[in-house]
């Protein structure tokens, strides 16, 4: 079962060609036609020997008989697969460096309530920690401050793992407001959210000219998107009690919400179904207690799926986001259909996070975040050979690949 040992060569060659292209034919750099591969759209049927046409960073056509405009470069994916780029719905990427060196740690802010914080403004977007995640097929991640236990650390942001500035990388600056929930915080958070609602109403009145005097409050401004239902609250809740109370609270306050973490979800499936709770699940590799099933966390995604609970999977990581496909793979071994595992990292994640108009599947009109692979990226042994983000061919210049190149090609002297 030998496989190609040099997957990067093809990509490097293509890059060189592509760079030369503008001078040759005058077409845009982010126009491609990926041909000959098995196109796994995720949203619909898989298309063998299909074509994906990308123009100006957007997927403009997907199918078998696609007309390729003059001068658009063809990218041969015969014998390969085309997938949407993978999404990790929860990380701390870019907010700390290796080893958590204090100077580079930005994953918490002082004060209990920081709804005005937006994660993308705190990330080091050039950090090596970001680029390497691409080797696993991740094009897009949600990142956010987890805080040190404060109730509201700030907004999670969704970013592509490629771009020259955080602003360029930001897919959605406020994807969800992180709330570190626990039942005994209910009173205080209720009061705070009610204050937020009142503030939002006052802002509306002020903007309608009904108030003679009004001053914006930057912090309170942060609450407006969630109290108006524009953006969901992401409740970090692990235990049964916390999950129940978070859901009740969200319903009471009329908030859009997601439950993040949901460690004890396996004990309360009926509740989740009854209340149509949307779950971001992590910790598939967690270790259960001796009085629990040994595969409690391996099998939770399968359980959620079988019951029809809407969920996506995330890593919560800061360095090993790219290993998330292995967590998803473990869930497959314990009953989650492979296709569903892929969806949990693509379309379902996009949908729960409200960006499925742009991401998560290979469909006309969506952003061209694409992978060319040797197989389903959730499968343990498949390799990601080529990656496009917003239609741009992403070079394999991350830290892992650079070190590989340097040391593999090492010449000469051996001492000791």
């Amino acid at each position, binding site marked *: 079962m030998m496989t190609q040992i040099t*997957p990067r060569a093809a990509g490097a060659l293509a890059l060189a060609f592509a760079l030369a292209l503008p001078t040759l034919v005058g077409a845009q750099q982010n126009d491609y036609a990926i041909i000959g591969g098995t196109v796994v759209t995720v949203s619909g049927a898989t298309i063998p020997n299909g074509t994906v046409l990308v123009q100006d960073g957007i997927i403009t056509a997907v199918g078998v008989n696609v007309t390729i405009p003059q001068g658009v470069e063809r990218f041969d994916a015969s014998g390969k697969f085309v997938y949407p780029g993978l999404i990790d719905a929860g990380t701390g990427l870019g907010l700390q460096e290796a080893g958590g060196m204090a100077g580079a740690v930005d994953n918490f802010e002082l004060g209990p309530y920081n709804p005005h914080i937006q994660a993308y403004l705190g990330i080091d977007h050039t950090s090596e920690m970001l680029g390497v995640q691409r080797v696993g097929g991740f094009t897009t991640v949600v990142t956010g401050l987890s805080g040190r236990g404060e109730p509201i650390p700030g907004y999670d942001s969704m970013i592509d793992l490629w771009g020259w500035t955080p602003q360029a990388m930001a897919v959605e600056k406020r994807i969800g407001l992180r709330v570190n929930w626990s039942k005994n915080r209910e009173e205080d958070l209720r009061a705070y959210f009610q204050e937020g609602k009142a503030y939002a109403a006052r802002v509306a009145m002020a903007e309608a000219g009904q108030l003679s005097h009004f001053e914006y409050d930057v912090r309170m401004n942060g609450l407006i998107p969630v109290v108006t239902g524009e953006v969901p609250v992401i409740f970090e809740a692990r235990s049964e009690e916390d999950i129940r109370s978070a859901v009740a609270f969200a319903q009471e306050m009329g908030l859009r919400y997601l439950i993040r973490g949901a460690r004890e979800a396996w004990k309360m499936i009926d509740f989740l179904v009854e209340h149509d709770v949307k779950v971001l699940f992590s910790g598939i590799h967690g270790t259960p207690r001796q009085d629990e099933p040994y595969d409690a966390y391996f099998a939770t995604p399968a359980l959620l799926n079988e019951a029809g609970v809407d969920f996506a999977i995330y890593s919560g990581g800061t360095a090993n986001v790219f290993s998330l496909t292995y967590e998803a793979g473990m869930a497959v071994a314990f009953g989650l259909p492979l296709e569903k595992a892929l969806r949990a990292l693509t379309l379902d994640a996009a949908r729960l996070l409200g960006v499925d108009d742009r991401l998560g599947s290979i469909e006309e009109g969506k952003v061209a975040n694409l992978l060319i692979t040797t197989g389903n990226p959730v499968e343990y042994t498949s390799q990601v050979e080529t990656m496009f983000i917003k239609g741009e061919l992403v070079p394999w210049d991350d830290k892992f690949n650079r070190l*590989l190149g340097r040391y*593999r090609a090492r010449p000469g002297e051996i001492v000791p």
Partner: protein
Amino acid sequence: MSMIRKAIPWTFSGLLMALLVILPGAAPVSAQDLLIRGGTVITITNGDLPDTDVLIRNGKIAEIGQNLTAPEGVRVIDARGRFVMPGILDSHSHMGIDRGLNEGSRSVVPEVRIADAIRHDDPAFFTALAGGVTTIHTMHGSANTIGGQNEILKLKWGRPWEDLLIPDAPMSLKLALGENVRRSSSDNPTRYPRSRSGVAEVLRESFQQARNYMAAWERFEADRAAWDRANRRTRGLAPLPPKRDLQLEALADVLTGKSILRVHGYRADEMAMVMEVANEFDIPPGVFEHALDAYKIAPEMARNGWATSVFADSWGYKIEAYEAIPYKMLIHYEHGIRTSINSDSAERVRRLFQEAARGVKYGGLPENECLKMITINAAMDLGIEHRVGSIEVGKDGDMAIFSHYPLHTPARVEMTIIEGEVFFDRSQTHVLATWTQEPEGGEERP
């Protein structure tokens, strides 16, 4: 007071086993007899054999072939549609250690033995079995330049402690380099060494003392022999031996190659330093633990014959791990560096088969090479490859039965067997949802 370890009696029991192998039908049925029928047998050393039976008698693999006859009374396990691989070995673990895995009060403690502090009812053993692991190498911690003697355990869950030991398995000694060793020093500022150069000198000094110790004993033995031969009336009192020193004995075992060096190290320069010191003292090559930067000095590693026991793709959790790359396995493979993948964790031990698969994703290694990293290569790390690590006649009947090829996504462990006895059976274990569908691709079982 010879320091030579007693001659290995396993040769005798090996003969006995050989007899049982030749006459599989002849021996009476024991609890350690098992026939695993009809699976795809992943031998590791002789390819993958479809529709093949494995017969275990008295805990040893007696026969491998097609359509074997089950001797009367021997339990038969139907493995049709399943994959049978050798039980997985975890080359670096800290499970099952009672009341402290790291003696951090001094920087040199080779007299200390993990074998003296085993707690064999650690439930983590069970979850490891559920991940197909049959043997672990449980080790001293990494906060000392020279730590203690490690121990190999077979995960015979439910048995008394002594049943978990492998008689006459080689010893190994834990050494550590880098942040952990120096951080311990900084909490206790008077504990030398504080710098990486200091670490080198501690190693040299310790090995030199061991050399001196061995020389003193050699001198004594010569003197004593001479005294024995001398004239009774004139020879005077017998020469006094040097005092036995357990620390120096443990180090002497390293110098003579009796004890394998297991060196925790991350940075390439530290590993190069150890190779230099080892060469200076003629110490046979051992294994570098973690060795995340070994790929940078792969030619040197290969030339000196050192092996590595690594994490597949973990990185970035401390400064020392900042240059680790998942492609390391490719570079090691290309240079012929023997590599095993370990867990160093009671969580990761449950999914070493999944860790091994990274070898294909990041490096395109042949699948069997990846499986070697959690079987025969780990067995060689421990010096027990004559007993475990592949499915060959005469080796221990340690296997894991998987639902699918172990490196493929739907694979999960259905049964784990040690020396012919079933120690994990998924169908007898508390699982979350018995209704969860069979992993895709599993054939119907009749």
